[in-house]
């Protein structure tokens, strides 16, 4: 099992550009999550999904969108990038309590 994979590893965006962060898991987990981690801080939940076709907002959803068309994939979309979205983004999946995290995407918006 590859676990949770994320692409790209790094990305630099200009203000106003759009991009999609990809997340795939091969563990057949129903629950998937997107977090952002700012320097020296803990993780904050952006969006989560309890299964294909079902998504819900987390603590900091503004400026982001998600979709969940399959069990395996949970992409995160940034429509109009802003400097405040500079962060490291982690995707995670779980069956119940134990969440498995991907390696992260480091995003810089300038």
């Amino acid at each position, binding site marked *: 099992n590859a676990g*949770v994979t994320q692409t790209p590893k790094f990305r630099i965006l200009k203000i106003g550009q759009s991009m999609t962060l990809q997340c795939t898991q091969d563990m057949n987990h129903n*629950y998937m*999550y997107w977090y952002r981690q700012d320097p*020296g*801080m*803990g*993780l*904050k*939940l952006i969006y*989560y999904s*309890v299964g294909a076709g079902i998504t819900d907002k*987390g603590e900091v959803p503004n400026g982001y969108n998600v979709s969940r068309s399959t069990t395996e994939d949970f992409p995160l979309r940034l429509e109009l990038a802003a400097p405040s979205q500079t962060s490291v983004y*982690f995707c*995670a999946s*779980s069956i*119940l*309590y*134990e*969440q*498995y*995290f*991907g*390696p*992260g995407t480091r995003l810089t918006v300038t």
Partner: protein
Amino acid sequence: GESVGLHLPTLSVQEGDNSIINCAYSNSASDYFIWYKQESGKGPQFIIDIRSNMDKRQGQRVTVLLNKTVKHLSLQIAATQPGDSAVYFCAEISSNDYKLSFGAGTTVTVRA
């Protein structure tokens, strides 16, 4: 809102000594607590968990203690090794929605 936090942002430990990392939580409705380890440039990695109806759980070189009276959680690492250098997060979760709430983290540095 309610949140989980850690007492100290940094901890320096001599190799071979035991480490104790503390965490205070405020949400008495949480029924599950997890400790994660995050090494530089990587995602968080599960270490150990404990249910709210327990007060102690042991793993390999790690022990988690839960004191519900004072809403305190701790992680003890025995015989700390250089590979234990990382940021440690406690997190709480409710069975209502399986959403994790993280504290800010404690950076552990192991001195040779």
